[in-house]
Each structure stands twice: as structure tokens, then as C-alpha cells.
């Protein structure tokens, strides 16, 4: 009888957790959150409540921060596992350049201070849009590795997903702030394509370059957005 009692006392909390509470909270479980379909009907009423500009900007900045952090972690993971120490320091000598080098993005502080809000936003958008495809490629490339850790793969996957939502946010922001309509496009290509199957070492180096370039660009995005935020002096006080 003792063992029976012990079993009962042992399983009561488990029972409570798994059975009782779900039963009690059953009505609550039925409330499922459905994303709002905010496509506006033609000439119809906008069904979705709009978000304020400040909140949207904050949310976009948060997105960018997160993306940067995760990309930083992915890069260091990759570095530890795949890149020998000597090559770590000679990134640039390998001849791999970042794909976004060609973009007309301000690269110094003086430039940035002179640029307008519009161009800041557009720069961000350009960066975001230019990285969507390469990240997908990076993901497939990493999957080919035999010893790629799951955390690395998960992180890169997460980043590529978040980047798409970031793009959407920036588009909305542009629309709000600049009253411009832009198309979210995936059609912009041409920045990066690789047809041939690369060698292993090349592949590794390319991926490494890709990751570190993306990390840098994520930081750029974050910085631009924060600068943009502090430019709204009537709503923010960044001093």
C-alpha cells in the first residue's frame, strides 16, 4: 500500500499538469490567434488597425538587432569549426568580396550624416532585399556539410526567415514615413549566382565570407535604422 501511495503522490503533479489544467483551460485553448489578413479590399475598409510609426520603427529596430546577434553567433560558430586559425586572419586576401559591395550604401559617418531619411530607408531596404537569396543559398550549402552542427543550421534558417519579415516591415515603414509605395520584390537578382559546384575548400571559404559579410550588413541595417530613429527628434530624444 505504501508504494501505491507513493506513486499517487508522485504522479499527482504530473496528472494535474497534463490533464486537469488542460481540462480547466479548455475554453482558453480554443482561442487561436489568427494572423490578420490585412489586404485591403478594393475600395473597402481597412480591416486591420494600423500600427503607429513609432511602434513600427521600434519593432523594425528590434528585428534588426536580433538578426545581427544571431548572425554574429553563426559566424563565430562557423569560424570555430571550419576555419583554421591562419585563414581567419586572411579573409580579405582570399579575394572574396562581399556581394553588397557594389551597392550605393554610405560607408562612413560623414556620408551618413549627410544622407537623407529617404536614402537611409532605401539603403536598408536594398540591403535586406539583396540578402534574401544568398541566405537561402547559404542554407543549402551548409546543409551539404557533414559535420555542420544543428545550431548553426537553425540559426541561419531563422535569420533567413526573419529577414523576410524585416523586409516587409521596412516596406511598410517606407510607406508610412515617405508615403511611397514599393513592391516587395524577389525578382531582383544578379547580385549573386553560382552555377558550378565549388570545391570543398572554396565552398567553406565562400560560406565563411558570406556569413561575415552578412554579419556586417546586418550591423549596417541596425545602425541605419537607429540613426533614422534618432532623427525623429520630435518623437524621440536620443541625447
Amino acid at each position, binding site marked *: 500500500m505504501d508504494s501505491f501511495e507513493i506513486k499517487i503522490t508522485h504522479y499527482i503533479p504530473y496528472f494535474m499538469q497534463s490533464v486537469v489544467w488542460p481540462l480547466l483551460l479548455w475554453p482558453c485553448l480554443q482561442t487561436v490567434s489568427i494572423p490578420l489578413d490585412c489586404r485591403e479590399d478594393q475600395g473597402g475598409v481597412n480591416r486591420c488597425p494600423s500600427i503607429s510609426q513609432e511602434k513600427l520603427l521600434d519593432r523594425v529596430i528590434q528585428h534588426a*538587432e536580433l538578426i*545581427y546577434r544571431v548572425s*554574429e553567433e553563426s559566424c563565430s560558430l562557423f569560424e570555430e569549426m571550419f576555419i583554421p586559425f591562419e585563414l*581567419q*586572419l*586572411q*579573409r*580579405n586576401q582570399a579575394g572574396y*568580396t562581399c556581394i553588397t*559591395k557594389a551597392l550605393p550604401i554610405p*560607408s*562612413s*559617418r560623414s556620408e551618413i*550624416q549627410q544622407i537623407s531619411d529617404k536614402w537611409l530607408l532605401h539603403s536598408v531596404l536594398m540591403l535586406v532585399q539583396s540578402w534574401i537569396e544568398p541566405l537561402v543559398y547559404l542554407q543549402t550549402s551548409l546543409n551539404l556539410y557533414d559535420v555542420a552542427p544543428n545550431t548553426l543550421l537553425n540559426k541561419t534558417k531563422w535569420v533567413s526567415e526573419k529577414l523576410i519579415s524585416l523586409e516587409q516591415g521596412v516596406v511598410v515603414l517606407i510607406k508610412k514615413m515617405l508615403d511611397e509605395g514599393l513592391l516587395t520584390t524577389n525578382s531582383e537578382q544578379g547580385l549573386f549566382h553560382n552555377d558550378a559546384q565549388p570545391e570543398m575548400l572554396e565552398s567553406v571559404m565562400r560560406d565563411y565570407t558570406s556569413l561575415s559579410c552578412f554579419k*556586417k550588413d546586418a*550591423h*549596417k541595417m*541596425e*545602425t541605419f535604422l*537607429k*540613426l*533614422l*530613429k*534618432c*532623427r525623429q527628434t520630435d518623437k524621440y530624444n*536620443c*541625447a
Partner: protein
Amino acid sequence: MRGFLRWRTAELPVMHVSTPAVIPVNQLLKSPMGCGAMMKSVMEVLLLLMLFFTAHAKEKSYSPPEKPTQTRCRSPEKETFTCWWEPGSDGGLPTTYALYYRKENSETVYECPDYHTAGENSCFFNKNDTSIWVNYNISVVATNALGRAFSDPVDIDVVYIVEPNPPEKLTVAVMEDKGWPFLLVSWEPPHKADTRSGWITLIYELRVRLEEEEDDWEMHHAGQQKMFNIFSLRSGGEYLVEVRCKPDHGFWSEWSSTSYVKVPDYFHREKSMWILVAVFSALIFLILTWLLHMNSHSLKHCILPPVPGPKIKGFDNKLLKNGNSDEIFSALVVPNFPPASASKYEEMLVEYLEVYVPEEPELMLEESKDLLDGCLKSENSRSDSDSGRGSCDSHTLLMDKCGETKEEERQTNRESSLMETQGWKEEAINHDTSGKVKTWPSVYSPLPQYGSNPLDKQSSLETAKQHSLSTSSFLTQPGTKDALGPSYTDFCLSNKENHLHPQTLAHRALQTQSDVNISNIGCKRSPATEYVEVQRVNKEDMVLLQPVVSRCGHIEGCPNLPKGEDYSKVKGVDCDNRLLLQREGTGEDVCPCVDQETNGEGGNCYTSSTVSTTQKPTACMYTAMPLQEETALALNGYVDTATMGNLPSC
């Protein structure tokens, strides 16, 4: 030369220097031998040795410089940066250090523009030379006369190496919030960091400690705000506050300069409250103490109930001390006791029965043993301060006397009966404290029916009664000494079931019979009434009886009153079954039973009544008394309750 050498060795055996260098010196010193020359040569040798060894000691290995190590590069505001390196050993020669860098995707090598601004072994890149989001490949070269050494190259990006300056203008003020103080800490970001434009976003952290507690810092994270409140201060304490900052992706700055603050004493309010509490509790304590004191007795009774001591109701201890016994014991006398209208026989005085002892002792013994349980013989002829209960321990037990009588009368039977009586004497007697009358076990004649069932008392008693009647008739023959012999034994019946009613009747009947027997003997009073005295009660609750001494000496029949005893004669029993007592009479009243001829009518002689009236009154013969109305004086002043007992209708 050889001679020199030989001379040298001969002259100075200690020094075995035979180097060629010595030889020219010796040649030089070819001078006449003597002490001075010897000394000189020693000096020369020593000098040469010193030169030789010092040359070895001072020898340097000049070498190219060791590789310098680059320690760190830091940018305080993401606009400029500085790199520091650690030089290795310089190889003994003056070494110069140079820093070269390349920007990413460019082969152009630049040298450090500023070696001095940031101090020793550093390179400072100003705003113009700083490009952000650009990888710098930096290496340091150490050069000396013998060679150069390259440090390991370092790749940096300015945005990742930001370490701001500590925050500035830290101010701490003591504010008050509803009487409770708190510290308001505020600061400024480092002046170089451009937080206003959002170029750098800083988050802050501060730490507080009491002055006396070293290394016991309390950390607070302040986020992006530039002020902070610290609560829960110790009154009168001195606090140290420091703050530092960090960019969103970068390194923590150093702690700012310490700011001191003293919290004023504010515990007056607290103290007054405590004083109030203390006073209140003291008051309550006093009240409780007073209440306890007032009710100490009742509390004592509650907690420690007093143990009841022995106390007799109505008995006054003080009277005892005074020594007045009458008054004392008057309290013990229970009025209306014995109850006048007792319906039960056990409350009445129990008469003792004189039982005829049959010839066959075995059966009697059996019976006696069977029936023995508890016996009480009440002495009805004596009134004492006792409640009138029969007690077997009175020395007027008949048993003893009967035992002696047997001896005198009969040799054989008496012996046997004596044995019996003695056996009976030692039978266990249980005093029934409830006052019931118990009589001795029956000692009937060996009628067969007696021997069997002691429980069937009623029947046995009746038969016994008949037997006694018969015996009495038998015994009325005068002169029959060989009659069954009065062995007057009281008999007791074990009376477990308190069926006394019929029993006592029978008992009395028997007793009367036995009295008749007694009368045959003559005026031997001793057999008539033999009394036994309780010697002692042994541990088996058996009363050990002994014949009363100095009783049977008088043949005249003066009843041997126990001397010195406080007996009073029963005058008679009235209708209400009350004993009428007589004052201690003279011997004349008592004595002569011989001449008495009683018909049960008055007279001094008292005879036990018998059921049967067949007896003729002879001298000193007990006659049946009509018990209804007569008060018979006992011959010796004793009232035989057997006669009295036959007053059922009375």
C-alpha cells in the same frame, strides 16, 4: 723557457698555470728571483685571469628583435581608434616599431599616422583614417640593427571594437519619498560618444556600496536612461556610487569616478514607533501579571488540582486535637442506624446459630468447605459502639466454646468435632463489609442430602432444620451424655447469593436446637454458650479463633462474662426487632439458670426459641419463647437472637 717553467713550478707549486700567455710575461719578468718578483708574477696572472673571464662574461649575443605582440585596438566613439602592442625583447640593440595596415580588398599598405597621441607603443587613427565597416589588417614590425620581426596580423572592424569612455558628471542626491530617503543618481554619457544622433547607443550600469563594506557592491542595470533611483538605504550610511556604459555591440567602459553621499539619519520616526510598541507591550504585560496574581488561587486549582486527603465527613480534626473523644465520635455515629425498619435481614442483627455437630465429621467438613465463602457472625447479645453488625471477630463466638464443650462431653466426637471446629476456625472467613449476614457453614449431621449440593442451600437448610429438630428431640432425653453432643458451633453459610431469608430462618432454628442441647448438659453454661475469641486473621482471610479464656470455669453456670469487656445485656427484643438493652446487671440476675423454669415467659432465663414446641422446659432448659411479645432476659443477660429471629410477623 724550460728552466723558467721548472722554476715556476718549483717555486710556486700552487699555481699550475701553463698557458703560453704566461710565458712572454715570464720572459718579460726575467729578473732576479726574489719575493718581489714573485709577487709581481702573481699579480700578472690574476689580471690576465680576470680579463679572460670578464671577456666571457660581458659577451652579448646581439640578435634581431623579438616579435612584438599586438594587444588590442579600441575605438571610443566609433570614429577613431587606437591600437596598442607589446614589444618583445629587443635583442640588445635599439629597436624601432612600426605599424602597417591594409584595408580590405586593397593591397596598399599604410603606415600608422600617429604614434604618439595614444602613448607608448600605440598607433592612433584619427577620423580621416578611420573607415567603418571596413576590415583593417594591421601588423607591427620591430626593427633593429640585426633584423626585424613581424607581429601576427590582426583583422579588425571598427564597429566591433567600440569601448566607450566612462560616463561623466555623475551626481548623487538624497531625495525623500514620504519620509523615506532614496538616492537619485544621474550622469552624462562620455562627451566623445555621439549618442544624440544615434550613432552610438549606450546602455548604463551602476553600482553602490556602503563605505565600510569593501567589495560588496550592489549592481543596478539602468538601460539607456541616464538617471536612477536607489532605495532601501541605511540611515546614516555613507555610500559610494559608480557608473559605466557599453554600446549595444561592444565592450564595457571603465567605472566612472566614485561619487560619495551620506544619508541623513531618519530613524527617529522608526524609533518613536518602536518606543510606542514597547510601552504598549509592557503595559499589557503588567496587566497580565496583575490578573495572574489575582487569580493565582483559582489558577492553581485549575492547573494543579489539590489531592484530596483522607477526611471523614463530619469529623472534625480540631476536636481530636482537643482530646474530647465523645464529641469526636459523636460525629461518627450515624443517626438512624441501624435502620429501624430494615426489611432485609442482612441489615439486622444476625443471630448466631448454635449448630449441632453430627458424628460423622467428614461430611460436615465437606459441607463446610463447600459452603465456606464468607461468614459473618453477628453478635446480637452485645451492643457495642459498633453498628450492630455481626462480626466474627468478637470473642463471643460460639464456635470456640462449642469446641471445648465437645471435649468435655465426648471423647470421640468431640475430638472429631473439635477438629472440625478447629478446621472451621481456620476456615476462611470473608467479612462481608456490606453488612450482610453470613453465617458459618453448616455443620449438619451427615444426612446424605447435605453432602451434595452446597448451592442448594435452601433445601439443605430446610433439611438441616429438620435434622436439628430431630436432634433436639433426640437430645431432650436427659442424661444423655452420649447424645450427639452439643457441639455448638456456629455455622455459617456461605452466602454468595444473599439468600439469607430462608437461611437465617433455618439457622435460627438450628440454633435453637443447639441451645436445647445445651440445656441438657445442665448448667454448664460453658457448653451452652461458648464463645470464641478471634485470635487473629491470617492472610487467607481466615479468622483464627480461640476459646475465650477464663470462661468456663464456673459450673454453677455463672456465665462467664468476659471480664473487662464492655458488654451490656440485652433485655429483649421488641416487636420492632430492636434490642432492649439492660444495664449491667448483677450476678444474681444472671446466674441461676438452673432454677429457672421458664415457659418462655419472662424470667431470667432465656431460652432460645425453637420452632418446635415439643420441648419441655426443664431446669435451665431453654424454652421456646413466644417471641411475639415477650422480652426475655437472657440468663446471662444475652439475648439470643435466634428467638428474636423468629419474629417474622413482628
